[in-house]
């Protein structure tokens, strides 16, 4: 029996350093499986995974689907999208309906913070948070950590600069929690309008200049800037944002020579990142996608095999 004392993965909060290391080690194994010609295992044969996506996300959903299938689970996708019905009402009603179908794991993406926690209270199976509002996106932080660990050999004492729209980013929150738990040094670089209140107490160093924030960094993690936030409401314009905060080859020079460039995708080329960098030698953006499948395999296998998922009343 494996040692992982959690039934759900709702966030990085609540995970300890050994929990995280356990998942990353397991994900390393999953990478090997994914690189074999025969990629399918029977670990989760007979179990049902439902991907419940209230927000459209082709890549995350595909990644979870592939992960489930490689483990031999039956995978069903439900894309609820933005229906006209009150989103929250749909969440609980849909959850109860799905619960009655006796799935073994529900993967939830929802636009409201806390949605995964709410779902976990109402259903009998494991819940994996695939992003809830501006709260957390734990598998993204795990895949980022795996990417870094494989490239740098460790997570402790490396300097990671998270740049861009931290305010609205669940990816940033999960990464801050995870990297701190693993002993990394975390910086955030953003205009003050894109930083949450109390950011300085979140275990990070705060910078408003890319040059200073990237100095000696081992990893430069860029965040996506949502289109509706570009023109006037949070930053004056795309042009001004790119000028000060867009990652190009010139700004990247401030970081260590072998610094990794990361992005959770989908990228806005020419907004937060220049193509020369996104496609350049330091970019590990494609590797992140590969690690995503491996991490999700590790998470689902761990949740579904470390707890009793036999007969339920």
């Amino acid at each position, binding site marked *: 029996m494996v040692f992982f004392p959690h039934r759900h993965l709702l966030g990085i*909060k609540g995970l300890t350093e050994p929990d995280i290391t356990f998942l990353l080690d397991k994900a390393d194994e999953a990478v090997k499986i994914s690189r074999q010609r025969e990629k399918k295992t029977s670990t989760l044969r007979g179990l049902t995974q439902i991907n419940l996506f209230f927000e459209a996300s082709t890549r995350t959903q595909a990644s979870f689907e592939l992960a489930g299938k490689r483990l031999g689970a039956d995978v069903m996708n439900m894309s609820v999208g933005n229906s006209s019905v*009150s*989103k*929250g*009402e749909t*969440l*609980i009603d849909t959850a109860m309906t799905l619960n009655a179908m006796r799935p073994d794991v529900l993967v939830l993406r*929802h636009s*409201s*913070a*806390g*949605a995964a*926690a*709410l779902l976990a209270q109402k259903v009998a199976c494991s819940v994996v948070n695939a992003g*809830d*509002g*501006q*709260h*957390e996106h734990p598998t993204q932080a795990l895949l980022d950590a795996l990417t870094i660990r494989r490239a740098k050999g460790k997570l402790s004492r490396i300097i990671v600069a998270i740049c861009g729209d931290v305010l609205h980013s*669940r990816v940033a*929150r999960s990464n801050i929690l995870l990297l701190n738990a693993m002993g990394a040094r975390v910086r955030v670089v953003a205009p003050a309008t894109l930083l*949450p*209140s*109390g*950011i300085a*107490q*979140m275990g990070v160093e705060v910078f408003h200049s890319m040059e200073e924030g990237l100095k000696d960094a081992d990893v430069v993690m860029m965040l996506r800037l949502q289109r509706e936030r570009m023109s006037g409401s949070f930053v004056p314009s795309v042009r001004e944002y790119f000028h000060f905060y867009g990652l190009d080859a010139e700004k990247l020079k401030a970081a260590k020579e072998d610094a990794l460039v990361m992005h959770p995708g989908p990228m806005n080329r020419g907004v937060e990142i220049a193509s020369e960098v996104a496609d350049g030698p330091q970019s590990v953006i494609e590797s992140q996608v590969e690690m995503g499948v491996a991490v999700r395999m590790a998470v689902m296998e761990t949740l579904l095999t470390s707890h009793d998922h036999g007969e339920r009343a």
Partner: protein
Amino acid sequence: MSHTVLKNVRIIDPSRNLDETGTIVIGDDGRILAASSQAQNQGTPDGATVRDCRGLVAVPGLVDARVYVGEPGAEHRETIESASRAAAAGGVTSFIMMPDTNPVLDDIALVEFVQKTARDKAIVNVHTAAALTKGLAGHEMTEIGLLQGAGAVAFTNGRHGLSDSLLLRRAMTYARELDAVISLELREKYLGNGVMNEGLFASWLGLSGVPKEAELIPLERDLRIAGLTRAKYHAAKISVPESAEAMRVARNRGANVTCGISINHLSLNENDIGEYRTFFKLSPPLRTEDDRMGMVEALADGTIDIIVSSHDPQDVDTKRLPFADAADGAVGMETMLAAALRLHHSGQVPLMRLIDAMSTRPAQIFGLDAGTLKPGSRADITLVDLDEPWLVAEGMLRSRSKNTPFEDARFSGRAVATYVGGKCVHTL
């Protein structure tokens, strides 16, 4: 009805600054004949019902100045009758009902409907606060004079703020001539567009924050306009010490202004939200522990005039949702007294001040015939056991809605009997 005599009772009457053990005699007309230590020496009238109240405290029945009811329009959450039963159980003998109903109480016919329903069905005194603007939309003022004539005791924009400063100035100018009280909630619609207190905790939860300034800016504006118009203004629910300070400053300028706070903001803080517990989603949002402590001090020194329950029944359809999508509000009439007594037990607020803030003072501000045990006044009396331990359980609430932030809370002290007009409407 025969006479009722409450013997050996500790009488606390803020309207007379009286705290002594004595006797209360209630006449057959439902009015108080005597309430003091001297009354002990008077003979007991023939046929009177005598209750030995040794160990109990008699206070003027509580007056709750901010209560939302579902009738008309959302009777599944609360009716006027069920609200009155919740009130009686909490020692509340009079409450002021907000106009946020469907339809909105912005017309004399609707105010009359509420008064009639209350007369027929409610077991406590129900007063109405009418809408200050038609449909609470914030564009046109209602018939303040006629509504007052129909019985409205205050004018408010309910849960909605009022953005139009010019309209507010005119409404206050007009209301001044009628001596009407204007009572507003404070939430600037742009800055206040969040779902919990702004700060580190909200940031970790990924929830949008409401800064204090979203309350302070409309409060400062309202206080300035109240000064300009010399109207009676009441800030319905303040939540941060800076607002209490603004009240002090305005009073020093001579403005005729008062303010209240919800019992929740004296008892709870933002950390109670925990993992997205929607019963703690309130407006204004729960603030920090430092803010709460500051508000307790401001209550003790009288800067904050009154405590309200801000009783706001919500059902699963509006609360069993992700935090940001859930409705604001919590029920509170049944727990207000017990929660307030915590401040007495902790020695932070004198008992006399607490009773004043929940009875005498709100009755004065809104001109109600309540809040006193003076001979001749209506016998609205709450008998309190200051120390009785009890535990709040959902099933015991009389309110139709169970959205209490005090579920499983341990309290010391509660109302053991409630008299309205001399009639016992609640007894444990």
